């Protein structure tokens, strides 16, 4: 099944706008910008978590007419600090047992499914929350600083693991504060301001 194009059309969040851009299947867009400029708010609008103006399309599906839980399964948002609602790690996954290869790629022990969430370090939480979203097999991933809590080696492992999804056709919208990371992963680089998104010249 071909992955449809994500198109953000004249969207306004509480931080500003209009934000308009398109992302093709298998493309990685990085979004940079100073703290407080509304990067997370833009991702939240793309996932339809906050009231916002403007329309977002995935192929010819309109966000405003798509059932919200279906939309969020297609355009999966991974917040910088994820939430946990059950006791053990595995309870947060549909089929934890199928994920052994991904756990290894992320440097997580295979038996961590039985761990209580309270025992996880912030880096483990971040990687498991990424895995939780990637396991949905969504065509679009909205990544909010996906390596913020990780050391350099783990960051690279996560980058490579995410780029493998991209190679399989997944669209990545990647918010980062690290210019070097943006250079490594981006097909196109954007800078976010209160007045819109601006594409940087080099990628």
């Amino acid at each position: 099944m071909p992955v449809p194009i994500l198109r953000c059309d004249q969207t306004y969040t509480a931080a500003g706008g209009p934000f308009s851009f398109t992302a093709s299947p298998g493309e990685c867009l990085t979004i940079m910008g100073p703290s407080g400029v509304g990067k997370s708010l833009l991702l939240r609008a793309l996932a339809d978590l906050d009231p916002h103006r403007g329309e977002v399309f995935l192929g010819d599906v309109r966000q405003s007419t798509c059932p919200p839980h279906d939309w969020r399964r297609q355009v999966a948002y991974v917040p910088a600090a994820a939430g946990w609602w059950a006791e053990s790690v595995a309870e947060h996954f549909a089929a934890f047992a199928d994920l052994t290869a991904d756990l290894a790629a992320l440097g997580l022990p295979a038996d961590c499914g039985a761990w209580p969430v309270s025992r996880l370090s912030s880096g483990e939480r971040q990687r498991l929350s990424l895995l939780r979203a990637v396991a949905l097999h969504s065509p679009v991933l909205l990544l909010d600083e996906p390596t913020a809590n990780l050391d350099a080696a783990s960051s690279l492992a996560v980058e490579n693991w995410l780029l493998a999804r991209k190679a399989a056709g997944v669209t990545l919208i990647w918010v980062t504060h690290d210019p070097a990371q943006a250079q490594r992963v981006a097909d196109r680089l954007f800078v976010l301001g209160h007045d819109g998104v601006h594409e940087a010249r080099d990628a």
Partner: protein
Amino acid sequence: MPDQTMHLSYGDLALAGLLLLLHAGLSIRFQLKLARPLLIAAVRMVVQLSLLAVVLQWLFDTESPLATALTVLVMLGFAAWETWRRIARPLAGRNGYLVPGGAIAIAGLTTLGYALITQLSPKPWYAPRYAVPILGMILGSVMNAVALGIDNLTQNALRERVNIEAQLVLGRRFEEAMRTHLQRAMRTALLPTLNLMAATGLVMIPGMMTGQILTGTSPHEAIKYQMMIILLVAGATALAVFLAVMGTLRLLTDDRERLRLDRLAGERK
């Protein structure tokens, strides 16, 4: 039947209040700072109930449907306001009163009407001697439970926001993401009612039947009335909590299944 009723004099009432004065002495001696608030509360209670006696006597004597209806409306209005006041983070704006007030009015009036038409059937059916005291008993419990339920739901939604949204972004429905919080709010609200029913008659003898027995009613009769009141009050409370918590839950989301914490009022000053 000989009149066994004891007639209380005002002197007897004053004697009953002596214990509080004794405590006030202790409070002053140990600097507990409770003497003044307790005495003020006691005086308030005496004034409020004395006024109530005048109003009730007048209502019962006139038996006017209009006056009864007005009394019921005022009681419901006060109940809505008092419930709103007890919720730390109610819904913002009018919904803050309308949701609990609506739930209380629907549950209270349905229960009252049901009791008046079936079990009690006074003549006329709206006789204030029955309608007003029964509604008062219902509202006392309902207000408390509705406030507990809404307060628990909104506080949990605020505290667990990240965990609720973590479920939404994985494509779970709002209803699923809120299920444990909904269950917890409903249970918290009904806990006092459950406990009351479990303890009644074992360690606690309810005030209503005690009053009846003291004025000469046989325990059998008094307890039958007490059971009816407890069942009616529990039914009204359960119904009101269901309506109020469901209504609040509905307003915490929108047609896009978002968590709309922006619809809650800010912290109380």
